[in-house]
């Protein structure tokens, strides 16, 4: 029996048993799975909030929930999704599991710190969850002052502290990855032989380490202001509310790249494997990640074009924002060029990669719209911006995350997911996504402000379309949840390298042994050299 064979061999899942063997594990792979469970919970929690929001917006009046509740719903949707799903999603699950394997290491540099990071995320998550259950918070995930410091009487402090704690999880993960990539590469694994996922995760880690402390400081200031009324942000005490916006976006704009850079890394892997070609312009794609990480720190002021920031500051931030567009464009072009004369498979992860490139292109291009000063004045704080960042976060990051999850699932579990269902749900998600968010571009340009519980009736048609799309999207997200669990038991046994991929993670058994590799790998080739896994060369 095949199943019996899988169970006999020792691997990271059956090396030890019991709750304790999980809660005290130092194995990066198990910690990756702990993260997977945690963020899946927050994803569906954030999704539940989104569902209620979309149902409320079916009609112009506020008939499902009160304004107070509605405001809490969009706030908690943002908090759950941004801080407890999107930011940890790819680095902490797929990165944790595969970054060490991809560079031929047995674990991360600091396995105990890695476990601590997970506990910090859980602790932060519980704090914020407690705030949500105790009464919720209504400031918007952006916590703008002086509303958050002097006016809101909801659970601001508990929520913000949850985010504060989770921030340390992010910092420690970043630190761990940086040290690991520097110190633990297998012999022969030079920087320019690294898979591009490692490059982009590395760049992300740098942002996590440099940016997140600013968020921590901002939350401390928010705390001091709210509790001790120091007068940092409160104008009646001589403070400046706009200062908060600067501090907040100094972290939160780079955080966009914490969410999207690892996604780009996943796409580089997928596009290469499923077209059996090295990524076109490898060096450009690698350096584009670094460029995005650096430039991402210089553009925060584009969120403040109507906040009484000076005219010339606006000019500089708009100008610099266009610089970030270039490395992103370079990536899209290089992925597309990789397909040229490839051997293209339509496996599910590749469908997600196609979806990502398409949706990220639209998200990125509309980024050019909102970076244009005069244009942004009209659309900022409207649904146009909501649509734009959902194209990047949901259309980009979540598509890549799901693509990566399907791609690596056989390695993580030793089982294949059901291909037919997977293709179907990828299609459902793509269609549902566009139906949900495309109408929001139109809504925004028409003038529909964001965070509106009730709205003028002329916007209803577009809102109904969006809600219809959201229902389709929800179905699309539930299907994989079901078949992934199903596949754990009933999925086809995968084998070590079902995709004929070149990464080191595929050169060991599925699921991998607890120490990853039976013999320490030695790297002699550049990344994505498919002749090493496919033998004789055929001209394609």
């Amino acid at each position, binding site marked *: 029996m095949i199943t019996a064979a899988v169970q006999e061999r020792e691997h990271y899942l059956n090396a030890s048993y019991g709750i304790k063997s999980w809660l005290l594990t130092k194995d990066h792979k198990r910690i990756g799975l702990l993260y997977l469970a945690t963020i899946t919970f927050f994803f569906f929690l954030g999704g539940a909030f989104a569902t209620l929001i979309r149902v409320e917006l079916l009609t112009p009046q*506020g008939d499902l929930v009160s*304004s*107070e509740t509605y*405001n809490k719903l969009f706030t908690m949707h943002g908090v759950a999704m941004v801080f407890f799903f999107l930011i940890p999603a790819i680095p902490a699950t797929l990165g944790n599991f595969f970054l060490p394997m991809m560079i031929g290491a047995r674990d991360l540099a600091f396995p105990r710190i890695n476990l601590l990071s997970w506990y910090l995320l859980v602790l932060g998550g519980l704090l914020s969850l407690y705030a949500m259950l105790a009464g919720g918070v*209504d400031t918007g995930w952006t916590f*703008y002052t*002086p*509303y958050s410091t002097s*006016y*809101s009487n909801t659970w601001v402090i508990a929520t913000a502290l949850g985010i504060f704690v989770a921030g340390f999880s992010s910092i420690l993960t970043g630190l761990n990855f940086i040290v690991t990539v520097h110190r633990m590469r297998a012999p022969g694994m030079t920087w320019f032989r690294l898979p591009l996922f490692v490059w982009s995760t590395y760049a992300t880690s740098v942002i996590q380490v440099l940016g997140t402390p600013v968020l921590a400081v901002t939350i401390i200031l928010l705390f001091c202001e709210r509790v001790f009324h120091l007068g940092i942000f409160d104008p*009646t005490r001589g403070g400046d509310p706009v200062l908060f916006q600067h501090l907040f976006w100094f972290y939160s704009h780079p955080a966009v790249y914490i969410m999207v850079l690892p996604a780009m890394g996943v796409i580089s892997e997928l596009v290469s494997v499923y*077209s059996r*070609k090295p990524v076109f*312009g490898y060096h*450009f794609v690698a350096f584009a990640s670094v460029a995005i990480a650096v430039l991402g720190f210089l553009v925060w002021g584009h969120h403040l074009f*109507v*906040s*009484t920031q000076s*005219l010339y500051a606006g000019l500089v931030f*708009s*100008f610099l924002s266009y610089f970030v567009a*270039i490395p992103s464009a*370079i990536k899209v*072009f*290089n992925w*597309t060029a990789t*397909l*040229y*004369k*490839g*051997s293209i498979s*339509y496996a599910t992860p590749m469908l997600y990669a*196609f979806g990502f490139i*398409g949706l990220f*292109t*639209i998200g990125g*291009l509309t980024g*050019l*719209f909102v*970076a244009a*000063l*005069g*244009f942004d*004045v*009209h659309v900022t*704080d409207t649904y146009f911006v909501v649509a734009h960042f959902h194209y990047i976060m949901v259309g980009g990051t979540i598509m890549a995350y799901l693509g990566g999850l399907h791609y690596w699932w056989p390695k993580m579990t030793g089982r294949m997911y059901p291909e037919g269902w997977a293709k179907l749900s990828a299609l459902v998600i793509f269609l549902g996504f566009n139906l949900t968010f495309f109408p929001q571009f139109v809504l925004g*340009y*028409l*003038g529909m*402000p964001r*965070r*509106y519980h009730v709205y003028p*009736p002329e916007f209803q*048609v577009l809102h109904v379309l969006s809600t219809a799309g959201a229902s389709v999207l929800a179905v699309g997200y539930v299907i994989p949840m079901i078949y992934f669990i199903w596949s754990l038991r009933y999925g086809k046994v995968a084998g070590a390298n079902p995709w004929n991929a070149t990464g080191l993670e595929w050169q060991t058994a599925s699921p991998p042994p607890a120490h990853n590799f039976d013999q320490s790998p030695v790297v002699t080739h550049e990344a994505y050299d498919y*002749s090493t896994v496919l033998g*004789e*060369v*055929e*001209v*394609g």
Partner: protein
Amino acid sequence: MGELRLLPEQASTIAPEVDHLLYFLLVVSVFFTVAIFGAIFYFAVRYRRRSEQELPNPVHGGLTLEILWSVIPFGLTMVMFTWGASIYFTEARPPGDALSLYVVGKQWMWKLEHLEGQREINELHVPLGRAVKLTMTSEDVIHSFFIPAFRIKQDVLPGKYSTIWFKPTKPGRYHLFCAEYCGARHSGMIGWIHVMEPQEYQNWLTGGAAEGTLASSGEKLFEGLACNNCHHADSSGRCPTLVGLFGKTVQLAGGGMVKADEAYIRESILQPQAKVVAGFQPIMPTFQGLVTEEDVLRLVEYIKSLGAKAAPEGTPTPGGVPAPKR
């Protein structure tokens, strides 16, 4: 369900400019989206995997291509940047002859004040074809003044004046929204902008039961708060005269200069110690907490009217046109 529109009404001089930029952005985006989608689709079909063992020849990249697809998009983005910036500059610079109005936002309403003394709540009447400049502040949290049909928006902050201007080009009734989340009834902080034919607007102005101009109620406050005990028509005594102050450059104690605009006068009343006039002692008490933002606006308007020698004491000028200041 209402009718389905794709673009909002164009009702100000800025609106068509923003729409033209939109068209340019759309053309560029549609071009790139079609090119990328098309290329992916074509490659995916043309180079689909035909056998499991197929191994294509590796292609590693091309410098010329990389340069081309960096430089061309960069050029295009610089057009977008320049275009967007030029609209932004227009939006930031109200024409000199603009009609002046005041806005005070508070949870959850807009209070709008005409110089002639008309006060409106969540409604604003303005004449067609005349530039209107709003000086805005908030009594509590941050709000944002947004008129989609005019394509303009500006945050309204507590403790600060911000300005916005527009020139309506089409009579009608347009949405006014608060665009910055401000608490429970944020979505109820909406109103209407009524653009009227100039004659109609005149009738509306004179028809309303205003209790004197903004400046004249400011004058009453000036006396009621005993500002006139210290500030006289001439700089006699220990206090500077406020006559002719508005628009003047003020020398500050400890060096430095500041232009006496609305924000400066507001600050002088609420935080007199922040900027002390050269040659005077910081003996002016703060009026923070004693006056509302609307009171401050009246005082500011009164002090502005003191500058205009031709129209002493802020006499309303015919046609709702404030006498030229400075």
